């Protein structure tokens, strides 16, 4: 039990660092003079104090974290940070319950983008900046920031990285030192975000909107500053810019880093995941556009293509913007988009879901089984991009998929038991566990998660957390073995 305090010690430090995040909405509040400065300042002080207190009280237990405690710390961070992040929301927005505020900040930090707030257009700019900043910080994983900073403070970070970075190929370290790797990834993330802000501004957004939407797009979150989401702008240019940056954010950031280091776009073609994702999304865009046009949803193919591509890319990359109420489309199209959201983002990106690499591994595994039936003596190891993937990874992936489907089913059943209709329950859980954002039915792009009961809200909050932490990381602490010495 004593070692638990080591986790609290580190967590305290994390909160102290996190309190710096309030600076940005404070600046926004000064610029736009929306009267929320005092609330953010107060929240900052409270977070700082809580963290400092936690840190001071447990400083006797300062020490290296084991892998087990790494898991605990990750879960601690992903629950504690949204908790403290609710402070300004609770103070500024009247009548907001803690359940809803926690849902909102969890949705922010897990870069889901599902919202319970309405009247977004009239929220104080600082609140909107805060919501989107949560996306941005959560997107790459606050952890990568922490990994870059914490070792400097004398707390080891490698075990955190292992627990946090998504995908089965997490051991492909790019530079010998983890701090260096994290710093490089963060630098790339930062640069692409700046590029996104400038492009959105050039495409016609205000500075506030471009910063918010760039944060949202890069974290593959999906919050918007408008109730109508991107539909508010009704601008093909903005949609085009966002499509490009959502796709960029859905690529493994290690690939970005490699491409930048060797200064060659060829790197992308060598990334099997990237190629599979792009092909899948391109084919789907044209397919869905054709389908919509054929069914007379849109009068011309080009309009159909415009709406199909934006919404499909947004949902498939687990971002969650919408430019139109696709809930009104024939059910095949939105279902296909939700299906893509489960599989199509790359590992090491800011998206969620099963990830393309796992999908590819399972596809190849199925192929291996066929070959094995035809040639019983065959030796055919799993190969991805010419490299052999050890069998234990294949088993881990199988285990993950099983847990993923089981968790999703259990949560869907929980929602249905509480009285929600099937389409809404199913799409809400899929949208939350994949960190997409909007679902279908009552929680569709035109609706909002505020229609859910408190119980249902918490179920969805749990789904977002489980999805973001890749299920294993969350469920492991509920196994008896985890607590056994």
């Amino acid at each position: 039990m004593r070692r638990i305090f080591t986790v609290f010690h580190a967590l305290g430090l994390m909160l102290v660092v996190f309190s710096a995040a309030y600076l940005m909405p404070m600046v926004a509040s000064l610029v736009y003079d929306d009267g929320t400065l005092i609330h953010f300042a107060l929240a900052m002080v409270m977070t700082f104090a809580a963290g400092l207190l936690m840190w001071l009280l447990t400083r006797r237990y300062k020490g290296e974290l084991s892998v087990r405690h790494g898991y605990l710390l990750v879960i601690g961070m992903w629950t504690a940070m949204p908790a403290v992040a609710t402070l300004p929301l609770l103070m500024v927005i009247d009548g907001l319950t803690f359940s809803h505020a926690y849902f909102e900040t969890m949705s922010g930090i897990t870069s889901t983008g599902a919202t319970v707030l309405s009247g977004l257009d009239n929220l104080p700019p600082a609140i909107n900046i805060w919501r989107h900043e949560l996306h941005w910080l959560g997107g790459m994983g606050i952890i990568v920031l922490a990994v870059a900073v914490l070792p400097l403070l004398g707390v080891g970070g490698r075990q955190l990285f292992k627990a946090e970075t998504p995908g089965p190929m997490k051991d492909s370290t790019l530079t010998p030192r983890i701090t260096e790797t994290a710093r490089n990834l963060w630098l790339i993330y930062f640069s692409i975000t700046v590029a996104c802000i400038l492009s959105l501004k050039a495409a016609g957004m205000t500075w506030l909107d471009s910063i918010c939407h760039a944060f949202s797009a890069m974290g593959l979150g999906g919050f918007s500053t408008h109730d109508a989401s991107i539909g508010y702008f009704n601008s093909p240019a903005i949609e085009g810019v966002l499509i490009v940056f959502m796709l960029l954010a859905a690529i493994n950031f290690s690939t970005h880093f490699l491409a930048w280091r060797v200064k060659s776009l060829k790197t992308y073609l060598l990334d099997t995941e990237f190629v599979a994702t792009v092909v899948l999304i391109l084919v789907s865009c044209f397919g869905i556009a054709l389908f919509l046009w054929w069914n007379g949803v849109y009068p011309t193919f080009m309009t159909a293509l415009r709406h199909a591509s934006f919404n499909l890319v947004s949902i498939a990359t687990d971002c969650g913007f919408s430019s139109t109420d696709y809930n009104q489309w024939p059910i095949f199209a939105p279902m296909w988009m939700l299906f893509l959201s489960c599989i199509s983002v790359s590992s090491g990106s800011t998206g969620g879901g099963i990830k393309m690499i796992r999908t590819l591994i399972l596809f190849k595994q199925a192929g291996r089984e066929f070959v094995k039936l035809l040639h019983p003596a065959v030796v055919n190891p799993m190969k991805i991009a010419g490299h052999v993937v050890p069998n234990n990874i294949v088993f881990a992936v199988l285990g993950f998929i099983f847990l993923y489907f089981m968790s999703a089913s259990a949560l869907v059943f929980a929602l249905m038991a509480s009285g929600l209709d099937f389409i809404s329950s199913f799409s809400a859980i899929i949208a939350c566990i994949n960190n997409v954002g909007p679902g279908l039915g009552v929680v569709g792009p035109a609706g909002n998660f505020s229609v859910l009961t408190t119980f249902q809200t918490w179920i969805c909050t749990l789904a977002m957390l489980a999805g973001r932490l890749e299920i294993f990381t969350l469920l492991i602490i509920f196994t008896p073995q985890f607590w056994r010495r």
Partner: protein
Amino acid sequence: MKILILGAGQVGSTVAESLVSEANDITVVDTHAEKLRLLQDRFDLRTLVGNASHPSTLKQAGIADADILLAVTQSDEVNMVACKLASSLYNTPVKIARIRASGYLDHPEIFNSDNFCVDFSICPEQILTDYIRKLIEFPEALQVLEFANGLVSLVAVKVFDGGPLVDKPLSFLRSNMPQIDARVAAIFRQDKPIIPEGDTIVQEGDEIFFIAATGNIRSVLKELRRMDKPTKRVMIVGGGNIGRRLARSLEQDYQVKVIEYNKTTCEGLAGLLKHTLVLNGDGTDENLLATEHVADVDVFCALTNDDENNIMSTLLAKRDGARKVIALINRNAYVGLVQGGKIDIALSPAHVTIGSLLAYVRQGDVAAVHSLRRGAAEALELIAHGDRQSSKVVGRRIDEIELPKGATIGAIVRGKDVIMGHRDQQIEEEDHVIVFVINKSMINKVEKLFQVSVGFL
């Protein structure tokens, strides 16, 4: 010539064996005393136990006045270091190293005189792989050997019933396909050489060696025997050094299956090969062969380290319907025993690879040597130097050259042109002349012919 051979493995001993008979002073160095004792018992040479990359060992072995250093130990690194030492300390004129790792071969600059000083690098496995690949490309041929960077090929083929040339004189070949130039260099009938003349009648069962431009091989083969369907399915038993390389070079163009006994080796192979089906099992297991449809296999190659296994699995495969079977056989005695029986081709790795080494050891300017019929005959690519005064070949017509009986000039390569060795052809300076010698004893005479007389210097 004084020759120092490092490593008494398969390559080392075969080279020693074949050079001893050509009147050279040979010293063999190895770390295993037992291997050396066996060599010394059989041949007239000197042996030394020691680490081949140590200066003291090299010195003791007499590197100081060696003309050629042949570093053919198991280890690429030892071979490279030995060459470097020989060059730095003793200035040995010719240094040849066996280098297997493609990691080294990909960077030829590391072998130059500023670095490891390897004058020639050879890779026996690669030579063998190329050789087998040719046999798979031309399943009708018994042997396909290339000269002058692949411009000219020497092909051995067995005459079967059904070819247009059977029971006809050789001159018929010329009149039957006037547009293609090929020359029959030798005919072996019941293992006896026949010197081919225009009126020699081709019989069923003859082994014919002909020389042609590489692009024309298929047309000539068509004249000699009925053509098979082109190769599609290849099965390889043994995923060692040779099996692996072969599978890798074939997998783009053919359907390849590799059977390997060792599970770990299988996993390594499967990781490396992209389109090859790797099977874990015994190449002599008839059930496995049947499951994998050996009956539909076009070429079946048994390339394990074990001669008996190779013979047995090829016999099984042939019985079960494989079209052409190739067995790798190390023991010389076995090769003669099985070749031409049930097994279509018995390959002796030593004989296939020795030629590339011999080329460097020979007198005169020899570009390539291929050992034929288990070392009894030889085909050489010699480069003619000098002029009419200093050379016995340059400026003369082929029928003016005093070639020993049994030696034939098959073709001449001048720049990029291939010229068949007809009687009235004149040889010019820098021509590559391909000579076929039916008996090894004449090689010396042929080489002498091509040496430039002292007056030229």
